[in-house]
């Protein structure tokens, strides 16, 4: 290559890079919102609900011709990244969206296993993030940039313990949980603590665990059967719940099985069938019997996608609207991503009594809303029926 060619090539390259930079940096009229969702992996239905909610939200904004911030209208783009239901992929997805796509705010990841490590990335890069569905305290703890759209496990654990005590009058509990996943492990511990506070040490007569990916729980369930427990609490995700409940029944277990908000997927009944009928779980909202804006959302979602949205979809909807409100409250976007992110974070932290479809939300200093939990009973038709509401005591 001659000297001339070399210089020519260098110039072309530099121009190309400059042009690219101009394209990505100059588009100040576009707001990018990142979605970190489990589209594949062990909980794909959660990812689907996240994506569908986000697309519905975007359609609304596009219909209004963009998002009004101050006196300017901005086009909104979604950057949807798949975290494969894995912690490391969720971290990668966040890093990519923050550093390459320059998103203004991130919605997700949903489950604590991904949200805890991904929240660290968002906090380090000073990018506001809301996890709609992660209930583990570590997600937002000491992370001013990270928020959540739901209640926490230290609240949910006692809710379930109190509910079972009042409803059935039981004193002996069995717990079966996945030890390799942040959410079930954390919630199992909070539940155990709450239960033992109510009924004394040793009242959790079986505390059995398994490892992510296991499908056979016969040994654990046999031990639970033998322990004399009056009910089983299993804070697992829907595909595992189907296996656990079926196997328990085949091993002669006919006592109640109680779950947590991870049960509430639209897919649960498809996989579990009549085995899950009559069981209870705690969750964020009950679709059957909803009113007002919540009902409007459910009807729209159902008409568009053909099934009743689960709690993940509803919480994602609320989180997106919190992000929208925060961006609008920010008042003016400078186009400098770092400044704008800071402005959105501060606006988000200052939101008061946000009226969401899953309840009113005001963030406390660690970015957590104080919300009520709902106990749902699975009806004989497989619907999630409202049974009872439990609110935090102030």
């Amino acid at each position, binding site marked *: 290559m001659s000297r001339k060619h070399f210089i020519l090539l260098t110039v072309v390259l530099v121009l190309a890079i400059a042009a690219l930079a101009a394209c990505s940096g100059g588009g100040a009229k576009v707001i990018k919102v990142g979605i970190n969702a489990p589209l594949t992996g062990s909980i794909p*239905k959660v990812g689907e609900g996240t994506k569908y909610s986000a697309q519905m939200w975007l359609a609304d904004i596009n219909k209004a011709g963009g998002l009004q911030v101050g006196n300017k209208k901005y086009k909104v783009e979604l950057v949807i990244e798949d975290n494969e239901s894995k912690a490391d992929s969720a971290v990668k997805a966040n890093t990519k969206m923050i550093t390459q796509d320059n998103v203004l705010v991130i919605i997700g990841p949903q489950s604590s296993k991904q949200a805890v490590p991904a929240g660290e990335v968002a906090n380090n890069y000073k990018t506001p993030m809301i996890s709609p569905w992660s209930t583990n305290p570590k997600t937002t703890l000491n992370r001013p940039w990270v928020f959540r759209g739901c209640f926490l496990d230290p609240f949910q654990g006692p809710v379930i313990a109190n509910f079972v005590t009042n409803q059935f009058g039981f004193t002996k509990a069995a717990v079966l949980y996945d030890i390799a996943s942040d959410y079930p492990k954390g919630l199992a511990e909070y539940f155990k603590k709450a239960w033992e506070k109510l009924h004394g040490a040793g009242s959790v007569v079986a505390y059995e*665990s398994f490892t992510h990916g296991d499908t056979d729980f016969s*040994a654990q369930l046999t031990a639970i059967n*033998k322990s004399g427990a009056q009910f089983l609490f299993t804070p697992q995700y829907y*595909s595992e719940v189907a*296996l656990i409940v079926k196997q328990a029944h*085949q091993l*002669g277990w006919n006592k109640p099985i109680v779950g947590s908000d991870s049960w509430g997927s639209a897919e649960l009944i498809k996989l579990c069938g009549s085995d899950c009928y009559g069981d209870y779980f705690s969750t964020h909202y009950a679709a059957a019997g909803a009113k007002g804006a919540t009902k409007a959302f459910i009807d729209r979602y159902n008409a568009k996608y053909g099934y009743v949205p689960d709690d993940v979809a509803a919480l994602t909807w609320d989180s997106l609207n919190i992000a929208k409100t925060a961006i609008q409250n920010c008042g003016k976007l400078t186009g400098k991503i770092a400044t704008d992110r800071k402005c959105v974070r501060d606006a988000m932290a200052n939101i008061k009594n946000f009226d969401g479809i899953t309840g009113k939300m005001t963030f406390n200093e660690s970015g957590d809303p104080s919300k009520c939990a709902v106990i749902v009973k699975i009806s004989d038709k497989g619907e999630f029926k409202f049974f009872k509401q439990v609110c935090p005591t102030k």
Partner: protein
Amino acid sequence: MGYFLQNIVNALQWGSFYALVAIGYSMVYGVLMLFNFAHGDVFMVGAYIGFFTASGLMALAAMGSIAIPGWLILILTLIIAMFLNSFVGMAVERIGYRPLRDAPRASAAITGLMIGIILETGNLALLGAQRRAFPPLIPPTVYKVGGVYITNQKIVIIVVALALTLALHQFVQHTKWGMAMRAMAYDFLVVPLMGIPINTIAALTFALGSALAAAAGVLYGVAYPVLGPYMGIIIGWKAFVAAILGGRGSILGAASAGFLLGFIEIFVTMIFPSTMRDFIAYTIILLILTFLPNGFFGEPYSAKLRL
């Protein structure tokens, strides 16, 4: 006592899957000296073929409004899935291994890994990530026998697994095809000189192993009716361990090691905290291999037979 017996039943069921999958590993390893790392995913494909066959048969039965009993659908599903999956196995051999028969062993081993990943991600791309619920062909009936809970499903799984193992053992020991397979395991180089078509025998080995994997897949669907594209990975690894533990190329060895693995896993969970299961179970297996490096029924390698 009831507790102990219950866990024996649990272990027999869990071991059945390891046994059926391990046999496929062991046969390919015995006859062709190959680690077919795609075998766990062939098991997954078998389960999916079973899922579509069973759903199709049930839809057919519903459409023609003929009352086909569930057990008949299960038998048909087993046969069809085994038949179709044997072609999957033969395709894996033809595409993945035959072109590399003279290549270094490491190349053939990574071929298995690559085919496995292609099968997993291909399934993901074609069918999506959502879990499939295997149709309940035989609704579980729970029997209580002396404090032990047994279901009709468990009985079917254990009986079918044992019957297929014994049938395959008979085939390999008492037919000409089986003799050809054993001859190939004995000496790969001389066998072609005797007029034995090695390509046919290699294909047959894969076909039989994959048919058993499909049977395991269908039975797995009956017992654990949630199917996903990555369901074969862990079972594949553990069945591979069982195949080596059983001894190279030994069908009964692989099957008994598969059941042993099931027993160790279940009984470790019975005695120790369940978190320690794999840690203790696989330490035990490591110890067994230290003292029995050729596995239960394996023969030591002979330098004169292998190059």
